[in-house]
């Protein structure tokens, strides 16, 4: 039994590591070498060369910077909106609260493809095509995030809020000073989730951005797939470099993230 577990664990590790390893191998070889038979198994010496070429073909440094700052701004704003909405839906009593929650949940069920054209028309009518705000603002109210945060706040003891009020704190102060610090684990999970979704977001930025100087990483890498030539070395290198910020965010927030996922697991 123990041996079986060990074998399965090794297999599992291989399956998840090999694609990543191949990404590194491919990123360090000249594109034409990848089609050789047998393909190269060890990293090659073309990394610098490929970096220079990638910078030349898609201005990778600029693209990376755009992706980083748009994802950061989006993550900060969207997490705040989610937390506020979730708090409101969990802790304030008002008419239509259930209905409002239902509407938020219902939007989770609408496939994004259905929204593409109407949303595009809206953006066009207010002149937001090819702007940064068009890839940040429309998705600030993220129904999954709102739901996640609402669930987090449901368990929050009302007594704490009341004592805050008795001490004369306003709603905003209560929210920032008492409520937010307590839900840090869930907030960490939310941050990772929203950063990842914005970082990997492809089809919307592709549709919205019409100037190469505004492209994000996924949109720019997409250009390496041509009609009669696919720059696999560049694609792999770009994909590899693009995972680095994700890893960083994950490392920073993962303690909260894991705690957040398990947070409700053993509560009655």
């Amino acid at each position, binding site marked *: 039994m123990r041996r079986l577990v060990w074998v399965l664990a090794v297999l599992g590790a291989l399956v998840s590591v090999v694609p990543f390893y191949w990404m590194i191998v491919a990123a360090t070889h000249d594109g034409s070498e990848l*089609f050789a038979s047998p393909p190269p198994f060890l990293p090659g010496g073309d990394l610098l060369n490929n970096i220079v070429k990638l910078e030349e073909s898609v201005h990778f440094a600029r693209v990376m910077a755009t992706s980083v700052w748009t994802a950061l701004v989006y993550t900060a704003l969207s997490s705040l909106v989610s937390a506020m909405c979730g708090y409101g839906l969990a802790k304030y009593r008002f008419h239509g609260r259930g209905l409002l929650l239902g509407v938020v949940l219902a939007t989770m069920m609408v*496939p*994004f*493809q259905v929204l593409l*054209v109407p949303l*595009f028309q809206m953006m066009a009518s207010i002149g937001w095509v090819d702007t940064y705000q068009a890839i940040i603002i429309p998705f600030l109210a993220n129904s999954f995030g709102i739901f996640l945060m609402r669930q987090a706040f449901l368990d929050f003891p009302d007594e704490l809020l009341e004592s805050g009020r008795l001490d004369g704190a306003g709603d905003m102060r209560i929210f920032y000073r008492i409520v937010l610090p307590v839900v840090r684990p869930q907030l960490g999970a939310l941050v990772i989730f929203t950063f990842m979704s914005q970082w990997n977001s492809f089809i919307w930025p592709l*549709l919205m951005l019409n100037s190469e100087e505004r492209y994000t990483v996924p949109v720019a890498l997409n*250009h390496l797939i*041509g*009609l009669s030539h696919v720059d696999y070395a560049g694609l792999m290198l770009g994909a590899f470099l693009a995972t680095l910020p994700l890893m960083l965010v994950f490392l920073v927030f993962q303690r909260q993230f894991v705690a957040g996922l398990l947070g409700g697991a053993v509560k009655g």
Partner: protein
Amino acid sequence: MKRAIAGLSLVLTASCATGGVPAKEAPKITQSANAKVSGNIEIWSWDVAAKALQRLAPEFEKANPGVKVKVTDIGYDNAYDKITVGLKSGAGLPDIITLEDTAIPGYAENFPDGLVDLTPVAGKYKADFDPAKWQAASTAKGLYALPWDSAPVGLYYRRDYFEKAKVDPKSLTTWDDAVKAGEKIKQATGKRLFVSDLASVATFTTLLQQLGQGYFVDGKVAVNSPDAVRALTLLKTLKDKDLLQNEKGWDGRVTATKQGKAATQPTAAWWSGTLTAEMPELSGKFGVVPLPAFEAGGSRTSANGGSALSITAQTKNQQTAWAFLDWLLAGKERQVSMMRTEALFPAYLPALTDPLFDEPQPYFGGEKVNRLFADEVKEIPPVELTGDDKQAEELLKKAVSACLLNGEDPKAVLDGAAEQLAAATQREIAP
């Protein structure tokens, strides 16, 4: 990515379902003789095509003071998602877009008022362009694009394999010759005749166009016509004699070619670019001859790919947009320049007489392959393209793989595909 694409085709289909509105007409291009060419225009393109535009735009700006041309490389892989959403929402498109020939009829049918009809200004050039491409850009209602690059098809071959088998590549004048040569080469070298993805329709379609036919004839389903059966029968003969190297998709074909798994490849002029980029070490190993004909004296070429430029109805500057197209495509100078620098094979026939095409190509052992392709351009058989071609392709994919992979009868599978296609598109089957 896949999800988004599926979703977009859903959007497209939905647009067809609301087809109760009165038929819209393509707005005809308007040009006033004394209006000045000025202002800004924007163009979407991809790949080397975008590079060509970016290189030439400053020349146009210099020749026309006050004009700014912005070229955006939107990438090829999802270009049509962008274009479809732009047409569907009636906003966000630039003045000029790049379209592959095969995409033009679908857009012309689904968005009849989305692209400008160029007939009034471009009609006079009809005789100057690759006839197959001119037809691809036209529908009954008008001319929706000006042809850009052509994709004449020839037979690339490996010199070393032919020499080893003592076969003269020039002797392959008909497909019967090619089958016999293929057997001989396989015996001598162990290599199959050419690479084909048996689950795709690309080779079948190329052969069908060589016979002068598309999926539809006069609007009627023709995927089971005698010519279609003939094209598929040829492929089945090759398969039965084990002369087809079955490889999945684009990467499979490139890898197999690099590894030298096949003796020939029937494909278009742009394949040279792939060869020189992906397999420089095979320099000197390849040559090109015209495609073998189905019968002596029959057509020796076909087409596979190629693009055109369209002016969108959303443009606010038709005058300058057309001036740019006219300057870029309907003249020898720029067409030759784009052939020299970006290897975009001109669809503009007068450009093909340029001495550039007579230069020997070192990669091909000094052969003048561009002369061969240039002479083929005007011979490419024009075929009918429709907005239903995509659907036909899906059904034919199943038919072709049933025939080649499961050994079913060519006529029977094509008859089946024709019936399904007729039902799906509400068209008749051609007699």
